């Protein structure tokens, strides 16, 4: 069987929603960050697959995915710095326990 665009799209959509599900249900902050990475990687797969199958004449999609990887690293760096500081203040990285502010 030939692997086509649809296969990639099913994979990336599944990955995206796994990421969203993880983001909404997990309690550990590091795991939340990993869920965001899943979302960003699903976008990368999308870009590369669209580029390869639909618009092979230029490399726009590939470039975009390279930029996403770089930005994701920056975002993770800031987020982890914030989480470390949060751990110093709260002694936990559980979302349910970092709730000094509520409705």
């Amino acid at each position, binding site marked *: 069987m030939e692997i086509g665009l649809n296969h990639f799209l099913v994979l990336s959509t599944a990955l995206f929603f796994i990421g969203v599900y993880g983001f909404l249900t997990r309690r550990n902050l590091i795991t939340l960050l990993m869920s965001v990475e899943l979302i960003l990687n699903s976008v990368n797969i999308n870009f590369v697959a669209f580029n390869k199958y639909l618009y092979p004449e230029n490399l726009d999609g590939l470039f*975009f995915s390279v930029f*996403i990887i770089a930005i994701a690293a920056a975002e993770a760096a800031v987020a982890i710095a914030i989480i470390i500081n949060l751990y110093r*203040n709260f002694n936990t990285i559980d979302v349910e326990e970092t709730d000094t502010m509520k409705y």
Partner: protein
Amino acid sequence: MTDILLLMKHELTLVVIIVLLLILKIREKEEGAENYMPFVNIMLAGNFLLGLVLNRGGELFDGMFVSDNIMVLQKNILNFGVLMISMQSSAWLGRHRHAPEFFVLLLSTLLGMFLLLSSRNLLMFYLALELSTIPLAAMCNYDLAKRRSSEAAMKLILSSALSSGILLFGISLFYGATGTFDFREISSLADSSALQIMAFIMVFTGFAFKLSVVPFHLWTADVYEGSPVAVTSFLSVISKGVMVFALCNVLYTVFNQMSSIWYDLIVITSVLTMAIGNLFAIRQENIKRFLAFSSIAQVSYILIGISGMSAHGMTSSIYFILIYIFSNLGAFGVVAIVSHASGKESINDYRGFAHKNPALAWILTISLFSLAGIPPTAGFFGKLFLLNSGAGQENWYLIIFASMNMIVSLYYYLRVVKSMFMDETEEEINVESTWLARLSLYICVGGILITGFTTGIYEHILSLAQSLK
């Protein structure tokens, strides 16, 4: 070469200031940060003044970067807001060990916002958006030892990461549907197919997160409450203003073919935002949280203005943001002074505030009147133009609902005024403020009183907006 210097003048000035601040930081000696603040304020004032002169329209980098008169105006408004915030926060930052870094982060955010306004390419748009949100989370964490501050930063970075993930998925679907990142080409290829509608909804979700439109507003109140006051005012004024401008640009240039779809989306979110923002604002006890919900409610009126889909839509939203900067910074300026002097942030702490500090109490009152939209202040005219623009679509139920919500909002704005002027308390707050903070408050009050009556301002923006079409 002169083209680059002139067209990117706003951005290049910011880069120069950022580099200067970094050099300062390297040469830092043990003395405190007080010495930086006058220097930073002078540079920001210079930045604002430089933004007013020598402006040209045109495009650079193969159409990736565009500048025109309306963008220059938007950037000048943002520069002005940042200058005000810096003046108000000098007392707080003077005590802080890391004042230069604060401005490096603040100005990087502003740089990202300028690029966001000028970008005409989705790749550039995304990069600018990230540049304008990642440093913001670090700024929220600036009270390093406070639990609330780090909790606020955590909430901001995670929700903005999720929202940019959703936005990116939308962009990738657009790439699949059109094969290009250029705004004009996407606009000519937009055909309201199912894939494009899906993509548009995801992009709009990303915007809705940043604007704190209702289904995605839950981070707002916590982040506003936990962050230092200077960052809260930046978040609520500058960050919100730039997202309104960007949403306006994107909806009017990229998605103008799909206007029948986004009109419905904007009406639904606007009604929800109005109702929930107003209802939750009523029950808040913390004044920063209360201002957070008030800013959520204000966004819903801006959405009505944007839904007008004409030059008036763009004009009224820019005009309203200008007024919103004056009124919100007036309010946050007083909150910052009180919070810095006494550490008190609850609405009940403002009981009897007017007896000891009549000037500050009146400034807060005028700002809240302007936010509520009571006639002599500029806020009334801002909202009038927004509703007027929205009424161009002849959706009268929406306009009536919005007007009724403005009446509801009077209750919670006047509650603060009542507790300042009519309630008694034994424990009175004594505040002192720097002359810079007072000057910025007077400028804000002057702006609130003058902007509404100077009809030339609205007409000037309108002529700029019409010259675009």
